[in-house]
């Protein structure tokens, strides 16, 4: 008997979820590098939407950084030379 669309969807989501749970650190590092992200750097765009609005200083600096308007465009990569990183480094020292 042919599975219903809901059954098909459940099976696919379950399988893809299992793939993501099993994703290795190497997979994550490769994808982050492709996207120009440095997730382990404080204030990285990779975690921005998960922690923005918190009260840690780095996030506050991140929110004020230029070029990060909520316009649906790709954010600049986590580049050491970007203004927000420079600003943060300056503050940290």
């Amino acid at each position: 008997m042919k599975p219903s669309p809901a059954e098909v969807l459940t099976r696919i989501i379950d399988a893809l979820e299992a793939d993501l749970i099993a994703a290795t650190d190497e997979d994550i590092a490769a994808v982050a590098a492709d996207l120009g992200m440095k997730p382990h750097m404080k204030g990285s765009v990779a975690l921005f939407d998960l922690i923005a609005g918190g009260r840690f200083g780095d996030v506050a600096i991140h929110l004020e950084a230029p070029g990060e308007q909520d316009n649906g465009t790709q954010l600049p990569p986590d580049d050491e030379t970007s203004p927000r990183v420079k600003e943060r480094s300056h503050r940290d020292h």
Partner: protein
Amino acid sequence: MPAQRPKLTHKTFEGKPAQRALATALVSVNDLLRLKAIARLHAHGLSGDVGWNDILQEAILRVLEGKRRQPEGVSIVAFLAGVMRSIRSEYRRRARREARECSPRPREDAHDRDALSNVPDPAPDPEALLATAQQLAAIDAMFLGDLQALQVLAGLGEGLTPEEMQTTYAMSKTDYDSTRKRMRRALLRAGLAWRTS
């Protein structure tokens, strides 16, 4: 041995749940990235007022507040993924109930209403069918141009085993394994890419 409880400090109560989970070492950065991609996968087809971030933050909050306890032997990512799945189901049930309450109903007396409330609806409603079709289309769209990935998706939907997929789609084991790896990275890419939705 029960799962180790996160250590609570004064900083625990600052920021969003995801930030608190990081601060208390409940999750690592890579765990959060896995969870972000999983949350986006689960959020396809949800109504506009609930997004992937809501589902993920709520799941973490329930664990931080002790409403959900991580079973022994289950990784935190797998556990939180299960909590997210349950939250998504709650939202969907609530949305369906609200939609039913808002739609006009023929007059019934109290006795009929009680009897009807105990009978399960045998057919999915059109809204649910549409949402399912949209979710399937959104998942397919992540793998456009990758024929083998689309074949694997079809096989997963049919409930085929990896061996059955390899036979059905004339794929070697190496092809199958590398397709699954491409799919995993495509999912991660879709999950981690910056977008405002």
